């Protein structure tokens, strides 16, 4: 697996897309920090970007890489290597190269700005952690979709739909159900509903850092327990890990039975 990972990674970090992605973040971080000059608002803008764009890019990259390397995958499949190693290796290659672009692209301007001396460092680190998780999760989901769809166009379509669903539609339905059932106690429901969407989970993790004061305005005891103590952060992080593991588990299962 690590050999495959190594070469997929070499291949990807040299691809122009990685550079585009890297420079995009570099530019974003720099403009946010040096034009805005206010760290707390920069972090909020950054959060919006991370929650929206990182999943999208992870998804597109994952699907694209899978379809583009199909023939090479065949060559690899004929080598004495375990199937799951091939795909997990490729997946990790994609996920790690994307993560690197993100971390270095955003990290450089923040370090240049003097982040280490700023109290916002923890907000920033939380942003990076959730960004990393979202990259891992969405490229894994993308691999899953690509593995289940031989047709490239269909695969791309489903992947974008999945992103749209998790990024926007899910929250819309969520809000609708909250408004519709507002006579009932909903705090448990809303926490559980959050757990089923990795984008919401990451958002919560960042909110715990940025907007804790607003979250605490709600009186529900379950919320209070969740947001007011480390329980919230640990539960969210734990669920994010589950969100990484489940798609990977499915990859290794599907791959075992699949024909190429």
């Amino acid at each position, binding site marked *: 697996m690590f050999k495959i990972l190594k070469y*997929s990674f070499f*291949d990807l970090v040299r*691809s122009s897309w990685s550079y585009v992605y890297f420079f995009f973040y570099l530019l974003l971080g720099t403009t946010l920090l040096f034009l805005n000059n206010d760290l707390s608002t920069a972090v909020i803008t950054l959060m919006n970007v991370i929650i929206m764009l990182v999943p999208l890019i992870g998804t597109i990259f994952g699907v694209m890489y899978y379809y583009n390397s199909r*023939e090479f995958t065949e060559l690899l499949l*004929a*080598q*004495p290597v375990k199937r799951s190693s091939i795909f997990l290796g490729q997946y990790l290659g994609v996920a790690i190269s994307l993560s690197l672009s993100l971390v270095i692209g955003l990290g450089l301007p923040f370090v240049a700005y003097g982040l280490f001396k700023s109290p916002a460092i923890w907000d920033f680190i939380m942003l990076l952690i959730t960004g990393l998780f979202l990259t891992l999760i969405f490229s894994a989901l993308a691999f899953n979709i690509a593995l289940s769809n031989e047709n490239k166009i269909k695969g791309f379509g489903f992947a974008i739909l999945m992103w749209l669903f998790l990024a926007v539609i899910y929250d819309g339905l969520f809000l609708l159900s909250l408004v519709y059932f507002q006579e009932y106690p909903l705090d448990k429901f809303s926490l559980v509903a959050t757990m089923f969407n990795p984008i919401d989970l990451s958002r919560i993790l960042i909110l715990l850092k940025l907007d804790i004061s607003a979250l605490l305005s709600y009186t529900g005891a379950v919320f209070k327990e969740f947001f007011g103590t480390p329980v919230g952060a640990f539960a969210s992080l734990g669920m994010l890990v589950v969100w990484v593991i489940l798609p990977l588990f499915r990859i290794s299962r599907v791959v*075992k039975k699949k024909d190429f």
Partner: protein
Amino acid sequence: MVSIKDLHKKYGHQIVLNGLDLEIKEKGIIAVLGPNGSGKTTLIKSILGMVVPEKGKIELNGKSILHKWNYRQELDYLPQIANFPGNLRVQELITMIKDLRGKIARDQQLIDFFGLHPYLDKKLNKLSGGTRQKVNLLLCFMFDSPLIILDEPTSGLDPVSLLRLRELIRTEKQRGKTILITSHIMNFVEEMADRIVFLLDGKIYFDGTVSELKTSTGQFDFEHAIAHLLSEEHV
């Protein structure tokens, strides 16, 4: 060497292999032929473990290969389409495959043979189709395994390289290897193959030498003989 019994495979409702039996004991070149959709590629991929059959047995040197991967150490494969990670260099790709196999390889010898020296430091997406096919051939032949499977090895090669390839396949045959080939180029098959396996509707329709094929169909020309096989089926 390879023993296949009662192999079944379908994609959805489409039956591709329908109880195929194939025994390959001898060394030499075996050409797997058949019309499109007859199951050539599926058969090859089954041997390679890329396709998981519904039913049946595939044994290599007396051992079942289903859901195994280590046996591919003894097997070389040339995929039909040579498409490699574009941003790797030729040398890196060679190193990678050597790395995966962990086996001694005669890559230098083959680089000389195909004249790939000037391309070693080039990225793979900068290569022409023919050069890429040469790289593909090199990756396949560098390990010296007893069983070699070639899927359309002639595609995209210039005449000089084609000659080289024939030469290479012949040497491999003389070194006592079993070589499985699919090809659309009939004169290439006629010239090279010791045994023809003709697939139709997921079964072996004809199995024998070139001359046996010619006599059984009553045709003097190989291409006509093949055409005859097909027309018989249509009758």
